């Protein structure tokens, strides 16, 4: 049996283990170990298993993920989300659908200090959904809007998905981070347009909020100055080579912590709870990454990525068709597997194909994040939907799923624009010369 055939059998076995509910990380380590042992020897397989896991968990680069997760949790406990929502509400609240638009921009701003879509959706959901209900907003718009806008958390830097992608493809984290800024703003605008269209079709779904005096708007804006400062410190420091990604995450976490202490929002209890929360999320992500290394080794010796790359090239189909198929793989895959394991699993296999066609790896990173955005809001796995369901317990799941569709179209449109105008993603990173 050729090593490529063994590799294919390994992939089928992996999918079978996913289906029977074996934890994703453990499935990858198990199949990786079996496959590696089969191709080389049982002794090599047994020896590589603990080494791969230990070396990956002992990797300094990967600690950036832990630090940025910690930053997001501390930003939440420091009440930064509340002030961002308050400012956005005072600025946009007085137009039709204004509360929903405020929530979208508050999510975008919270995304600038938190790298997780679920954390962004949870933080803003707790603030925005009760407010929208109070003003008689339609449940479909209120829940769908927050579930979808939460995805801005992974597009606007810092982003855990960009970190994982950068770590796996050895791309500059700083360049990846800033490549998400313009697409993030475009997506926020498209989502706001979706809200406006929904309110034009059905004016009762998003009534106007209270009118706020100009001075109040200015005051609310001043109150979020610390968030802006934190963003500039972390992303600026990273971009200009002042910090490594791990240092930037650590400084961001410290900044959020200090803000919480100064503003008396942070308590000892919330500090401990959020540290535990960050640890649990890090354990979940890092276990998958470490286990995927074993599977990645198996894939490498089975030569699957190279065989697949050669096969795709031999098809002689246009570039954009290949890109369309890859996006489709992520879209369909995202419906069944969570975004992070899907990326960790597929990047080593699909990335060589994308690069062999001359696509920009930074641009592809943004595309990956955008398809991840679709994955986290599409049924049946759509994690953001369940986060919002946990907050709005009285709203049926079907209502939330119905509510995400206009926003899903906004994400698809942003992706299409990025495919045809890749410079939107690569313009900012190309300004940096390192």
């Amino acid at each position, binding site marked *: 049996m050729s090593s490529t055939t063994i590799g294919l059998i390994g992939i089928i076995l992996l999918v079978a*283990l*996913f*289906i*029977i*509910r*074996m*934890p*994703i*990380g*453990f499935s990858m*380590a*198990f199949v990786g*170990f079996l496959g590696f042992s089969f191709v080389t020897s049982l002794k090599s397989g*047994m*020896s590589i*298993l*603990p*080494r791969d*896991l*230990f070396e990956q*968990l*002992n*990797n*300094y680069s*990967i*600690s950036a993920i*832990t*630090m940025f997760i*910690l930053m997001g949790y501390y930003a939440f406990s420091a009440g930064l989300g509340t002030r961002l929502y308050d400012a956005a509400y005072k600025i946009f609240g007085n137009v039709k659908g204004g509360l929903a638009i405020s929530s979208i921009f508050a999510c975008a701003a919270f995304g600038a200090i938190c790298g997780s879509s679920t954390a962004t959706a949870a933080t803003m959901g707790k603030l925005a959904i009760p407010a929208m209900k109070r003003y008689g907003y339609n449940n479909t718009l209120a829940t769908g809007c927050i579930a979808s806008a939460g995805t801005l958390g992974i597009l606007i830097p810092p982003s855990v998905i960009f970190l994982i992608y950068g770590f796996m493809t050895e791309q500059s984290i700083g360049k990846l981070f800033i490549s998400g800024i313009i697409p993030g703003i475009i997506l926020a605008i498209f989502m706001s347009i979706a809200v406006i269209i929904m309110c034009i079709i059905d004016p009762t779904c998003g009534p106007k909020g209270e009118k706020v005096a100009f001075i109040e708007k200015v005051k609310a804006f001043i109150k979020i100055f610390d968030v802006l400062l934190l963003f500039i410190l972390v992303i600026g420091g990273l971009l200009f080579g*002042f*910090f490594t990604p*791990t*240092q930037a*995450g*650590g*400084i961001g*976490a*410290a900044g959020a912590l200090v803000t919480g202490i100064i503003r008396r929002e942070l308590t000892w209890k919330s500090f*401990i709870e959020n*540290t*535990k929360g*960050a*640890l*649990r*999320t*890090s*354990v*979940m992500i*890092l*276990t*998958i990454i470490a286990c995927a290394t074993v599977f990645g080794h198996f894939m490498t010796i089975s030569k699957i990525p190279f065989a697949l790359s050669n096969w795709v090239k031999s098809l002689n189909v246009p570039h954009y068709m290949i890109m369309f198929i890859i996006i489709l793989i992520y879209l369909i895959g995202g419906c*069944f*597997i*969570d975004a*992070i*394991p899907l990326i960790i699993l597929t990047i080593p296999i699909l990335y060589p194909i994308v690069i062999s066609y001359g696509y920009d790896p930074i641009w592809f990173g943004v595309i990956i994040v955008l398809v991840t955005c679709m994955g986290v809001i599409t049924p*049946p*796995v759509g994690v953001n939907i369940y986060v919002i369901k946990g907050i709005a317990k009285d709203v049926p799941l079907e209502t939330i799923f119905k509510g995400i569709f206009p926003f899903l179209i906004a994400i698809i449109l942003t992706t299409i624009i990025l495919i045809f105008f890749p410079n939107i993603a690569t313009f900012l990173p190309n300004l940096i010369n390192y």
Partner: protein
Amino acid sequence: MERYEKYLRRLCEYLEWAGVLGILCMFFANLIDVIGAKFFKWPLPGALEIISFSQIVAITPAIALGLYLGTHLSVDFIVEKFPRVLKKILAIFVSILCLALAVLIFWEGLKYAHSLKLSGEIGSVSKIPFFPFVYVFAISWLPVILYYLIELIKHFKGER
């Protein structure tokens, strides 16, 4: 069996506290290194190794509690549609596979730690030996083994 499960869960919760200490150690080592390097021209010697080793202390002891909390991702919605008997058979099968994997990582991890102890491998800057952290890594899989053992016994006793 419930008593043992309670003990194990408590052990996992204690281990999570070790993880909390680990993540805080990562955070403070990082902070001391940045502030020291940027403002006092004195970066923390061996900061990279300290952070990496702390990550082992943070992540591996907390893996077992994730099993109780359900934070380890899996594809749930397909199995949910299966009949009860098939679900049970599959759960037993998955527990056996996970148990085998955890035993393998634990045992091979111990062997790897022992080999590092004998070779005397240390961090290039911090001079901290590697082997205690590999032991931490390997021993952290022990509660995972116990978790799946209890799961299997409960399945066979009909408690699940």
